[in-house]
């Protein structure tokens, strides 16, 4: 696997404030790579250092093996789709899309042809002569995409490109963006704070918080095997329960759940026996038929169509959410009833704090 971008211990300081606290990432060629994290965690800052709009305080960034620290933005084979699109308001859609080619010295005729080709790719061929202000938000977004793709960059940086669109359009664009990435073969570095978007589109995700990378992995790993409490909480819905790790051996850990039931699960590197937490996804819990792992008192049952959500509390007061598929099952527990819950094998994930 060829490396497209190598980020090595990058630190970015604004005065006394550290926006990036030593970020290291390796992004592969052809990859759809997502930076995911809450607002203010440093995603845009990291993107800006890759594009060349910000200098790094410390650390190195390599593009296809070449250190680009000294290169100004116009010398980096990287293009950006800006969060607010930043389409040039005084130029037509065609001139916007052709701008990068013009700066590269491509002849007008070829420029026109390439711009037309790009506009076709984003289904905007009929809008070439309009000004950006005469387009809807979704159309502007596509123009921004076409403009950034036209010079055939090696890497495309996208800063929350879908956040300004309404839900339906956003969902349609997810699929389209992913297809675009696959057809063009360009490495995409996509920034979002929307975990669903990240899971749906990415080859790999880097979860960030507070200027640090918390975990890197494919969507399934991030969702099913979060390494710490932040990742478990941030990605989807989860139950975080306090547990006792009694023993660790051969990559397995024996843990005692609240209520005293003992389970074995995968150990986590660097985790010693003692008091810790596990994450258990609500859909990996089910109503116990026999010997229950957890005992809880039901507070509320919420009907969600395809699913049912069971809100309950353990004896020590810890809330626990269970998602049950809505099938023609036997009767549901009523509020106030005591239920036994079974934890699916391997579903209890130990977390580093």
């Amino acid at each position: 696997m060829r490396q497209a971008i190598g980020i090595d211990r990058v630190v970015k300081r604004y005065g006394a404030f550290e926006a990036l606290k030593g970020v290291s990432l390796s992004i592969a060629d052809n990859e759809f790579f997502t930076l995911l994290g809450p607002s203010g965690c440093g995603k845009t800052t990291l993107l800006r250092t890759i594009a060349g709009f910000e200098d790094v305080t410390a650390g190195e960034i390599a593009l296809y093996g070449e250190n680009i620290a000294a290169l100004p933005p116009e010398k980096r084979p990287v293009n950006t789709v800006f969060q607010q699109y930043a389409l040039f308001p005084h130029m037509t859609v065609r001139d916007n899309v052709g701008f990068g080619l013009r700066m590269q010295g491509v002849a007008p005729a070829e420029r026109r042809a390439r711009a037309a080709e790009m506009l076709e790719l984003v289904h905007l061929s009929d809008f070439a002569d309009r000004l950006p202000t005469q387009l809807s938000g979704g159309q502007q977004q596509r123009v921004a995409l076409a403009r950034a793709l036209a010079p055939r960059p090696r890497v495309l940086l996208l800063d929350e490109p879908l956040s300004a669109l309404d839900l339906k359009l956003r969902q349609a664009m997810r699929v389209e963006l992913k297809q675009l990435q696959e057809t063009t073969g360009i490495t995409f570095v996509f920034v979002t704070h929307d975990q669903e978007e990240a899971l749906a589109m990415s080859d790999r995700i880097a979860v960030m918080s507070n200027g640090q990378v918390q975990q890197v992995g494919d969507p399934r790993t991030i969702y099913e095997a979060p390494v710490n409490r932040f990742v478990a909480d941030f990605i989807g819905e989860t139950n975080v329960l306090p547990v006792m790790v009694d023993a660790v051996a051969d990559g397995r850990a024996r843990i005692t759940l609240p209520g005293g039931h003992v389970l074995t699960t995968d150990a986590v590197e660097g985790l010693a026996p003692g008091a810790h937490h596990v994450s258990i996804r609500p859909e990996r819990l089910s109503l116990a038929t026999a010997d229950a792992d957890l005992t809880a008192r039901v507070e509320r049952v919420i009907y969600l169509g395809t699913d049912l959500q069971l809100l309950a509390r353990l004896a020590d007061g810890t809330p626990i959410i269970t998602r049950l598929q809505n099938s023609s099952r036997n009767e549901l527990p009523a509020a106030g009833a005591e239920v036994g819950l079974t934890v699916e094998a391997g579903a209890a994930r130990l977390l580093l704090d």
Partner: protein
Amino acid sequence: MAARTDMRRYAGFGLTTALCLTILYVPLAVIAVYSFNDDRSITNWAGFSLRWYADVFTGPEAPIFRAAAWNSLSIAALASTAATVIALAAAVAMIRGGRFHGRQASYALISLPLMVPEIVTAVATLVFFTAIGVRTGYGTILVAHITFCIPFAYLPIAARMQGIEESYELAARDLYASRWQAFRLILLPLMMPGIISGWLLAFIISLDDFIITNFVKGAGMETLPTAIFGSVKQGIKPNIMAISTLMLMVSVVFVTLSYLANRIGQKTR
């Protein structure tokens, strides 16, 4: 936005407005009307005539006015252009230059001339020219005009630039434009309404200036305001009203253009 209290509901608003408008515009209206009076008197209406306009261009004082008009217009054009270029450079440095040492001081320096009494500037400028031994004349008027026009050109330019997000230039740089190309192809066109507006404002300010000009013009050199003043000292004749009305029209045209430039700017944002 929350509904604001309508000013018009305050007691006395109508009266105050009427009073202000009267004080501001009645003298101008009187001059404009009487410039078309077919009589030497400036109080007695004797019918419509263009004779005083003809007098401005062909009468005994015509050569003085013609020379003065040429001086005024050429100085205004040169001074406003130079001031606009300097103001644009200042605005780019102040607004796009990031934080640099002395940024606050620079801002104060640029806008201070607006607050200094003009007579003080006039005396200081004259003292300066005398001290460095420059002969007063066309050149000194031009230099003085460039100086006091800068803040007037700066204000609309800076206001416009503040409204242009930096992301446009970054997008241009990202698309392989050099710093200079990003300025010329993106920032400059987006700034144009502010630049035009600033230039027009500086032009009017220069055209209109009397006090400073009077100090630094030197003997035998006149601009329109100083020529008019010189003529009025020998008594007010209707040809002065005609020439004042012409200047008023030039001002109105320029102010309207400046306003339109800003309006168009708003639309293209």
